[in-house]
């Protein structure tokens, strides 16, 4: 059939192809959707996670697949475009009919996908540390909540380093805003005066840090031990750290503790001037554990490059994937409702030598580690929590969410249950 | 219908609403002079394009401007039509209208039309559309949006088409016309806009001798009803139409008079034939 390139023909072609592609859902594989940006600004972080999921899928298939079927990864590229995340999620769920999605990095992409997941009853694993204040029936959060990263980090600075003055520096978006809000409340609870807290926000990809670093320098030279808590995002970190190094702010004078800087970010520049600055995560590549060494070997073998690093979101993906596999095996089906029920209470080894537990609020229990940057771009663990810390969906330090509780187990089955009013609001699933 | 007759008036399709009509420009020519140009000075980066230039043109006159390249002919036209603002000097249209206080569009609405050196017709539009755009009519936004050609206007366009000999090409895109035809079309656009004063820059450049002759006839016939200022290099042509000629040199008027007077003017001879003559 031939037609002139008219609007009519084209639109029909669109409709026809799209409709047709839905008809090919095969039943002999279990489909795993991968929703990570492969182009655009977020590609730099997310491409690694796509590779991690593909590696895990390959490994699982080597072990004989799942429920007697092979796993099949379906990769789409939402191109760092937030509305496209929703569209691609819909495509994965309705056209490709995937059984689970591993995806998203930024909060906004998760927020964009969330209504689609709830509408179509999909299942997604979100592997990045985030601001909390959310618990959806259809999402499992395998990254850290603020109480699994920020609060222990501040405890460490306060108790072990004797920090009295605080700079909270972040990129202007929701994660730093929430984290800093929580920290501000937390610090004030611990007797820190408002004049000893400096809060600063910068735009995405900020590249000229001269003034801010110099402000930090003078803020920090008032005689009290000062630390910077950095929630600066992605791109902006390299020029920030370069400026720190050049202006001679050493970790002994003013330590900077970061929540968004991991091995991957450090691999982009020379860390020798930054030795001793800190990061708080639930995993570091340098952790001395056999599970970790195995994982690193597997990663290097898969990616074919000994220089590639591993990082915390990769561990979160690893845990999420293994938990999902266990839950599917336990439920005997990939049906979302059954898997969701089976997920709660799942335990699986993490990469730091302990066990990760999925809690009723869809967040994990994880250990919190604090590492110092080394001159080879790795972190050296200098402190860790005694045991694991359960993730808290709703912060106890925010007035709006103090009274909220997430519990997806019977009988509550609510992501934001208001303890005071007894109401469960904001749910848009059926 | 008992509507007030005046309100009915509002909906007549051949009229725009009165409150949208700009006040009819009245050019006061009680002293017979329609254009006063006095003491114009203009320099670009040190180059004096106009140097204390004075020029008076009578109503209904046909005036030719001649002069070497860079004498300031085109710059003078730019100043009169509002394209360029002089450093000093005044330009008055009739007794009362100070042209320096108006922009190009207003000056055109006042009744000064201009034909450029290079024919600039709208090549992507038809010959008829080109003329329609040039019609003397309300040029405001809403009137233009809702306007329709009235039968008088269509007649007007048709008669101009006839004058410029493009009746056959009425529906042709202007871009497909020959160079001479474009020149004619541009003259037609001038005619259809019924200006009081026409500024015509090199009208016969690139025309065949026949066309040149017709142009000369047309321009002479225009004089009287309209005032015409022609800039031209073709001396034959100037001689054939000119009653009064002004010679521009280095931004000011060197001589003025009939062709013969000008040609025998000592200053002109000196400038054109060299100092040693």
């Amino acid at each position, binding site marked *: 059939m031939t037609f002139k390139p008219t609007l009519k023909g084209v639109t029909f072609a669109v409709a026809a192809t799209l409709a047709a592609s839905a008809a090919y859902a095969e039943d002999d594989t279990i489909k795993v959707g991968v929703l990570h940006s492969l182009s655009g600004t977020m590609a730099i972080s997310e491409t690694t996670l796509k590779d991690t999921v593909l590696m895990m899928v390959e490994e699982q298939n080597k072990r004989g697949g799942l429920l007697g079927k092979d796993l099949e990864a379906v990769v789409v590229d939402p191109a760092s475009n937030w509305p496209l995340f929703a569209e691609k999620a819909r495509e994965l769920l309705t056209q490709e009919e995937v059984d689970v999605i591993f995806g998203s990095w930024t909060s906004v992409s998760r927020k964009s996908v969330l209504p689609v997941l709830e509408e179509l009853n999909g299942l997604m694993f979100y592997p990045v540390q985030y601001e909390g204040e959310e618990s959806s029936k259809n999402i499992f959060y395998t990254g850290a909540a603020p109480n699994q990263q920020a609060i222990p980090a501040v405890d460490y600075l306060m108790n072990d380093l004797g920090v009295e003055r605080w700079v909270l520096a972040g990129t202007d978006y929701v994660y730093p805003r929430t984290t800093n809000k929580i920290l501000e409340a937390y610090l004030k609870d611990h007797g820190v005066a408002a004049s000893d807290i400096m809060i600063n926000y910068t735009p995405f990809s900020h590249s000229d840090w001269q003034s801010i670093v110099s402000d930090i320098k003078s803020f920090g*030279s008032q005689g009290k031990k000062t630390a910077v808590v950095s929630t600066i995002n992605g791109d902006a970190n*390299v020029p920030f750290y370069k400026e720190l190094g050049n202006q001679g702010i050493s*970790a002994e004078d003013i330590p900077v503790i970061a929540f968004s800087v991991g091995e991957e970010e450090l691999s982009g520049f020379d860390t020798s001037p930054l030795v001793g600055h800190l990061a708080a995560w639930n995993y570091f590549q340098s952790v001395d554990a056999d599970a970790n060494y195995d994982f690193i070997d597997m990663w290097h073998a898969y990616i074919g490059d000994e220089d590639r690093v591993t990082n915390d979101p990769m561990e979160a993906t690893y845990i999420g994937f293994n938990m999902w596999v266990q839950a599917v095996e336990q439920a005997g089906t990939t049906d979302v409702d059954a898997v969701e029920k089976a997920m709660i209470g799942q335990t699986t080894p993490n990469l730091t030598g302990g066990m990760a537990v999925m809690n009723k609020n869809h967040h994990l229990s994880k250990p919190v580690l604090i590492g110092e940057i080394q001159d080879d771009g790795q972190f050296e663990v200098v402190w860790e929590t005694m045991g694991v810390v359960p993730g808290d969906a709703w912060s106890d330090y925010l007035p709006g969410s103090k009274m909220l509780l997430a519990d997806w187990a019977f009988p509550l089955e609510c992501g934001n249950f208001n303890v005071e009013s007894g109401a469960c609001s904001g749910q848009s699933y059926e | 219908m008992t509507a007030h007759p005046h309100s009915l008036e509002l909906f007549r399709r051949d009229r725009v609403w009165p409150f949208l009509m700009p006040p009819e420009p009245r050019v006061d020519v009680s002293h017979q002079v329609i254009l006063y140009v006095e003491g114009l000075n203009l320099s*670009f980066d040190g180059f004096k394009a106009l140097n204390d230039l004075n020029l008076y043109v009578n109503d209904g006159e046909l005036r030719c401007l001649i002069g070497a390249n860079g004498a300031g002919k085109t710059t003078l036209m730019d100043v009169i039509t509002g394209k360029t603002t002089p450093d000093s000097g005044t330009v008055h249209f009739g007794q009362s209208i100070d042209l320096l206080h108006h922009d190009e569009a207003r000056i055109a609405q006042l009744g000064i039309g201009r034909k450029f050196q290079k024919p600039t017709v709208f090549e992507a539009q038809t010959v008829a559309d080109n003329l329609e755009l040039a019609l003397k009519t309300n040029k405001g936004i809403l009137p233009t949006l809702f306007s329709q050609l009235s039968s008088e206007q269509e007649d007007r366009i048709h008669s101009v088409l006839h004058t410029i000999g493009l009746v056959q090409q009425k529906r042709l895109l202007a871009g497909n016309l020959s160079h001479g035809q474009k020149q004619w079309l541009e003259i037609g656009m001038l005619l259809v806009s019924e200006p009081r004063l026409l500024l015509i820059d090199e009208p016969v450049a690139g025309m065949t001798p026949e066309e040149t002759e017709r142009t000369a006839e047309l321009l002479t016939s225009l004089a009287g009803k309209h005032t015409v200022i022609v800039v031209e290099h073709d001396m034959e042509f100037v001689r054939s139409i000119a009653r009064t000629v002004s010679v521009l040199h280095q931004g000011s008027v060197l001589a003025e008079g009939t062709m013969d007077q000008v040609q025998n003017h000592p200053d002109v001879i000196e400038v054109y034939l060299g100092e040693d003559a």
Partner: protein
Amino acid sequence: MRLAFVFWFGLLVLWASPVWAEEPSAEVNTLLEQLTEAGLRETQPILERLASSGDEAVVLPLFQTLLDGDLYYRRSDGRLLVETDVDGDDHYVDYFSGEDYGELGRREQSKVRINNSLRGYLSEAIARMQLSHEDPAVRTAAVRSLLDDLDENTVSLLAEARAGESHREVRQALDLALAMYTAEQGENSAARITAIQDLSESLETDVRNLLFQLSEYSDDGGVKAAAAEAMQAIDQKVTFYGYVDQLFFGLSLGSVLLLAAIGLAITFGVMGVINMAHGEMLMLGAYTTYVVQLMMPNMINQSLWVAIPMAFLVAGSVGILIERCVIRFLHGRPLETLLATFGISLILQQTVRTVFSPLNRRVASPDWMSGSWEINPVLSLTYNRLTILIFAVVVFVALLLIMKKTSLGLQVRAVSQNRAMAKAMGIKTDWVDALTFGLGSGIAGIGGVALSQLTNVGPNLGQSYIIDSFMVVVFGGVGNLLGTLVAAFTLGIANKFMEPVTGTVLASILVLVFIILFIQKRPKGLFPQRGRAAE
């Protein structure tokens, strides 16, 4: 980092005894054994005992290696190792015997871990040991690093050093330290007040903090008043230097903008090509730097000198290619060159992403660009910013000379002003076009080398500078190189002086709004081309 190691290693060899020297005494040996087994909290007592063992020849290099994070031990027997670079591979060498154990796997060796407080302890201990170092600069630095922690022991050490010190600067530093001690702990108020008055000349932050403490909490009224007065004097100077600092920041931002925009001032300003791929030329320059460093891993200090001409060639030839293949077909249609070059920019970005991966690449800074030039304790200019500022001006002057003094420049100007006439006069306009575009792109490539020292080297590098570049060129006036210079520095300084008041985001927005309004007022920029030719 290997590079840093080489550097420090070199230093070590220069001033300390060779690393693998005599085997230490039994006491030290036991301590070292404990060191490899200790947890972070137990390390400091061991180090203190090591320091007090008195064996400086062993302890000083050991502490230095530890501080540099190069001290490892073998898991099997606890032998101390140093990580050493051998032909580009990390080898582990026995700390004492110098025996090379080759590359050891993750599970065979471990690092002797230190943390920030240990690092602090180590640098202080090293400083104390270095009070008698032969280099006066090292001695000064040692004294200054002790300022924040002056106890009786240290002070007596310092007083002793003062007695035998002959170098002027070291003496000044020592005097300052002793004055601080007197101001705080002096026997009578008169002595304390005199000391405080001496201190008011100093801009050291430790001094200021001490004075602040005294002015707020001192029991002695006279001391309190003197401290407050001294502090006021210091604060005035600090404010002044603050402005100087801001000005420098502004100039520095301006130089970055200049480097980013200067290539565009040629391609867009002179040729009228709206080159949306300009940012990618910057990116190519930055990646060239990366590749050059990959090819000469042991010569980072020299690599930039190779990278600059290379970047010019790479970006320049890509530019010529673009001109020959695309832009020459689009003469006189500036808006279409915008679309075409935008397409090119996407292709270049994706090419880089495919070849080098979407991850940022690590570009090392040469040593002469790290650190800062400390004019005084509150004013220090970072070397990289300073270098880039000078570099930007040099590039600008060079470009200006090319445009004004060479025949290429003359032809370029001729073609840009009147193509047909230039052609008629025998100028090969095609050739000139290609070279001009190549020149603009090449200059952008050089700008990219500079940017690689400041920011991320990744596929998005170009994108983040393209809008700024256009703003600078348009603000300065298209076709006017000097305008570009003035515009870049004006915007840089304006931005930096607004930032403290409005915050970063608002400052950028205000600058943009200002440019939009400015263009309304002067559509042709700060320095417009005038005359009929410009129409």
